């Protein structure tokens, strides 16, 4: 699906392709015996990297004469985001491992609440996108 989106140059199929990638990983994790996967932060950061590169690829298709420094700045920004995502995921994984919460508990409940709140927040931002900041 990701490939189709990239070939067609359309952004709509991209999230579905990324979601399928993530779902495949989650299914693989569920089939394993209980225990935290140490590669989870790398998968999380890798999925973000794939998403960023996919959207960059679509942006780069629009023909334009670009400032020479634009690509380098974006590459640095993507690298920074991926690194930050890896650190964040690593913190979550370490926290889960230390707290012995891999099988459920307070941390996951908090994460679930964060998901709900975050989803609501983003939905609100999407519904009111015209004035993000004066």
């Amino acid at each position, binding site marked *: 699906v990701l490939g189709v989106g990239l070939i067609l140059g359309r952004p709509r199929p991209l999230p579905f392709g990324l979601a399928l990638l*993530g779902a495949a*990983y989650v299914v693989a994790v569920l089939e394993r015996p209980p225990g935290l996967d140490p590669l989870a932060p790398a998968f999380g950061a890798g999925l973000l990297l794939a998403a960023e590169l996919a959207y960059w690829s679509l942006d780069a298709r629009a023909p334009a004469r670009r400032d020479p420094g634009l690509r380098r700045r974006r590459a640095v920004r993507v690298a920074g985001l991926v690194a930050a995502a890896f650190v964040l995921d690593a913190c979550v994984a370490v926290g889960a491992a230390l707290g012995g919460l891999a099988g459920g508990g307070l941390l996951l409940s908090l994460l679930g609440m964060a998901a709900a709140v975050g989803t609501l927040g983003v939905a609100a931002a999407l519904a009111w*996108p015209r004035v993000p900041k004066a």
Partner: protein
Amino acid sequence: VRTLASPKLAAYAGLGAAGLTAALLFGRPEAAALGLPFVLVLLVGLATAERPRLQLRAGLDRDRIVQGDHATLLLDLEAENAVDSARVSAPLPAGLEPAEGSDALEVRLGPGEHRPLTLPVAARRWGGYVIGSVDVEARDPFGVYRFVGNVDAGLPLRVFPRPEALHRPVRPLETQVWSGDETSRRTGEGIEFADVRPFAPGDRIRSVNWRVSSRERDLYVNDLHPERNRDVVLLLDTFADTTLDDAVRATWTLAARYLRQRDRVGLIGFGGTMRWLTPALGEPQRHRVAEALIDTEVVLSHAWKGIETIPPRMLPPKALVLALTPLLDERVVNALFDLRARRFDVAILEVSPEPPLPPAHRPPAGLARRIWRLERESLRQDLRQLGVAVAVWSPGEPLTAAIEEVEAFRRFARRAPA
């Protein structure tokens, strides 16, 4: 500037929410590790997004160019706050194209930065154009929002047809009474020697040919050909779509050449809508012809058109009517026969409609093509029998060759009575 959510915003929100929800449902923190990076990008992006405050001014370095030349779109972009990426594009009307591959520029602006930008525009076809709007699309550093705006530039650009190389234009049979570059057939005051004749009262002393007078023992004077101008009416067939571009280029070439020779030139656009330009001479007429030509377009009409619709002052006596036509529309052909019947000096430069046609080799299409060609040749013969020179000009070939063919016919053919 309008603020829009980028496709990335919705996608990342969905992916983040899905990851965190899956973590909650399945009780696995690995799923949260997939969703959290997207939530992180969203939070950072939303927190840092700032609406860009941009000012854009647009102009053209010139408003008149010749077909094939370049004009430069001058853009002046100014940002009050930092803009990570601003894409400026100018959608060009058909006939104009970006000279350097793209009609867009993408730049980064610092706070208070003022950036002059240039976008070369090439004119592929003659005509009158308006570069309507210049669009700007800015993005925040993390690409969660798009800020779009446009400036209604309304920049007019007139593109004149590129003239063909031309050695000399078709010479009218008759000259007019005003002075010009063409040697008249009549005798009078001029430079070109015409004849010697006996002196008559009223002749100037300086006209006396003393050598002949002394030999003949009587006074003889030189007769001279005066230099006069000519009237030329260019009849442009605007019924035909496929040959219009080339016909306009040839018309412009001939008009410019005649006007340079101080001839009077008129223009008739004979098509769905009839347009005309009364014969006149000089630089103002050159501009009028150019403006009339670049506004020429094909207008579909099935209305009957005859030369009665042309005002009499458009067709001065003794004017050469030079038609540029593919001889496809019956209304134009009838008008040409009609003009010849009214004893106008008519010549036809037939802009060949054949090059755009696909090749036809197989029996039905090939036979039809041959019959069509025979009919066209028959039409040419009918016109030639009336003393109308017809030369076929295929675009891509030198215009001079077709003009010489017309000249050769007019030099040797006897004019048939109309």
